[in-house]
């Protein structure tokens, strides 16, 4: 038996090709000290763009270094901007907020009450892959799932600080206040709201 899973096994792990027993075995065993680097290298091999991956952010999303910026990128290449701005704000969204739409997922008696909850599905505008789903009460702000302290992680956990230090502070409000400003410039807010909203509302209407 290998002391640690070799590269091919890790590749299968990422691609979901390992059987559960092997996955469980890997989970229950200690990691080799450079597992993160190995993992990152494999991820880098799998994508077709050149930017260096700093941290995987989900099944299809990565935080990458692009020039001096750190941005969120989908494996299709679509970019979502600064990692400190919630990437969901730039995604396509389909909101299930009626009985009929909820019943497509949870049919019959399992169907939740749309007055109490809605399901928001986020899709990549580049490839159409479903990236995330959130289930929240209607009107709840879009959740920001994960804002990692990249520098803290690289410096204190990996012991390999990145050349530039950037504080991990939530900048999503910049995007939303920009939207608010744009909206307030419109003469009739209600119509404008429909015409120029976030992709969220667009998809909601279309759906």
């Amino acid at each position, binding site marked *: 038996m290998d*002391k640690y899973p070799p590269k091919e096994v890790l590749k299968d792990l990422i691609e979901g090709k390992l059987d559960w027993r092997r996955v469980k075995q890997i989970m*229950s065993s*200690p*990691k080799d000290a450079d597992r993160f680097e190995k993992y990152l290298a494999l991820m880098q091999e799998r994508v077709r763009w050149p930017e260096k991956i700093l941290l995987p952010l989900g099944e299809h999303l990565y935080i990458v270094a692009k020039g001096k910026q750190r941005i969120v990128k989908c494996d299709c290449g679509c970019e979502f901007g600064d990692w400190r701005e919630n990437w969901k704000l730039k995604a396509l969204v389909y909101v299930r907020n009626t009985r009929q739409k909820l019943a497509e997922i949870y049919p019959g008696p399992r169907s939740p009450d749309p007055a109490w909850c809605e399901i928001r599905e986020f899709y990549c505008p580049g490839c159409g892959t479903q990236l995330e789903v959130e289930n929240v009460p209607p009107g709840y702000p879009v959740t920001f799932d994960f804002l990692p302290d990249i520098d803290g992680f690289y410096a204190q956990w990996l012991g390999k600080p990145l050349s530039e230090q950037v504080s991990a502070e939530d900048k999503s409000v910049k995007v939303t206040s920009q939207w608010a400003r744009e909206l307030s410039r419109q003469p009739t807010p209600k119509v404008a709201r429909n015409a120029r909203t976030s992709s969220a509302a667009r998809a909601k209407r279309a759906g």
Partner: protein
Amino acid sequence: MTSESSPQPMIVTCDAGGTMTDILLVDAAGRFSVGKASTTPQDESAGFWESLEDAFSQWGVTLDGGANGALKPLKVSIYTGTTMLNTLLQRRGKKVGLIITKGFEDSFVVERGMQAVAGYSYADRLHTVTHAHNAPLVPRKLVKGATERIDLFGKAVIPLYEHEVRDATKELVEAGVEAIAILFLFSYINPAHEQAAARIARAAMKKMGREVPVFISSEVSPTIRELARLNSVVIQAYAAEPVREQLFRIEKRLHDAGVQYPLQTMLAYGGLASVRYPRLYESVVSGPVGGLLGARFLGESVGINNLITADMGGTSFDVGLVTEGKIPLVREPEFARLMFNLPMVTINSVGAGAGTYIRLDPMTKRIMLGPESAGADPGPVCYDRGNEIPTVVDCDLILGVVNPDYYLGGKVKLNKEKALARFREEIAQPLGLDVYEAAQGVLELINAVMRDQIRSLVLAKGYSTVDYTLMAFGGAGPMHMAGFTEGLTLKGLMTVPYAAAFSAFGCATVDYSHRYQRSTHMFVAPAAEAPAKLAVAKDLNRAWEDLETRALAEMMAEGFARDAVHLQQVAFIRYGGQLDDVEVFSPVRRIESSEQLDALIARFEDLYARIYVSGARFPEAGFQILEVAVVATVSKVKPLIERRPLSPPEPPSRALKGMRQVYHHGRRHQASIFEMGELEPGNVIEGVAVIEAPNTTLFVPERKRIRFDEWGLIWME
């Protein structure tokens, strides 16, 4: 093999493990011979036969395919294997269809939370990311619901919708199932619907012209809790029948060689059954059971009532207790990550064996033991077959306890240099320790794990180790017995020369017996009057009678005379509202008066007070009987444990093979090396010494000595 002095084989027992198939041959004079061969999972009869030939060769007899009649004198042949375990673990059993009470079709998917972590280490239980449901034994599309309902009192509140059973059968058979299992709720109280469904299913198949076996849960395991019952009935169809095919193949080879008696196998609760036994799933766990039963038998033979058994093999360390000659049962064991309704002798197991991996946590540098182990392939580092992770036996080798040239009698050459190099690199250097000191430290750790296991089993029951004699066995038991008992106050500590095959020996010591149990709802109120007690007695008698009828029918079908079968009536009694019950053997066959019921309850209270303390008794809560059983036993020939004359303490000079350096407790010792087979009853050997046998090594540390007694036991004092 016709000369008078040749051993006449009387009993052969075989314990086919995951890697090795051990055979123990016993002759009429009580002489043993141990055979070993690799297990052959495709056709276990091949490994069985090879191991048998090996055992005979120790007696200087060639088996010659059995044609020479060497096997003719055999009276008992017992086989326990791992086919069922492997079939379950690898989920490669028969294609089974299930008909279940409508609304419960997702039972396998929902299962029980416990099954999501069953068999996990403590660390994995804590880390929920590792929790996972089992893949259903029967895929959802082969599960069909049938409308019916029997309530908890056994009353049919919804009749069985027969057409649904008919349709389901048709669909299942058309889908190509190889067996049909049927489970309805509360069938353990009233099996009428299950029985009717089985009849309908059989009739429907007859009409279709394609018949497969039908199994109903009330026949396989009529006990409460439907998931464990479901597992039990499905396993019978899914995994037990393939096992039967293996067993038949072995039996055929024996019969072809002139053996006249049927092949038997071991059941989880310590009984033997013919390979034609209908509920063969009860043999799902049988290997480790043998050791405990063997220890009880030895104890009975030499007069030891309280025993702790410690079985250290390659992958696990199994601890069991014999208290006052009795072995407690668990009734819902988990196995292969499934829970079963099956009485099983209580054995606590921890992943600490000779092959257990030793690793350092790369972050904390903490030594981590197991939980997995190297098995026989690739084996420990010293096997030099590709494993690079040090194991416990590599430490034993490094310290000089294991002889690299006499492992498995020299069949496997061990590479000590490689073990040393890998251990130094992986463990000693990162810890900044001397390699011997580190190896010693690892052994102390694993010994501590095993010691805790022993301690917790004994203390959790409220017993004290002072009252117990510990018996160590398994291939690695004698090597570690001094270590894992260090600091325990025991009445005595011993092993036997055939420790490596002791589980197989244990199977030979057991009677032919089956258990029949079913769940009941009986309550004796604290101040019950005689009529109320007689009503309970009537229910109890009826339940026993039903079980006995089945028991006798099965035993007679297996060829035993009615008179040879001994029946023991059992009730599982608990105080009202408590969760644990006690197995109580009834003093009478039938309860005919309220006084006799009182006597049964008094027996329960007495046992309860002995298991816990007398102050814990709680008769004010009344008494519940939620399960009754009948044990049907037929006695059989057993190995003879004979007292032998004692020789002087000085071992014969031919037994001393030489000296070897052994590292122990921080320093090097010159240890005397003895050959186990040359030692005689009465011999005493002072530590530091190593006693070597082809399949085990006994280590005697300093300030300890061992004594061979007249019964063939080896005491460490």
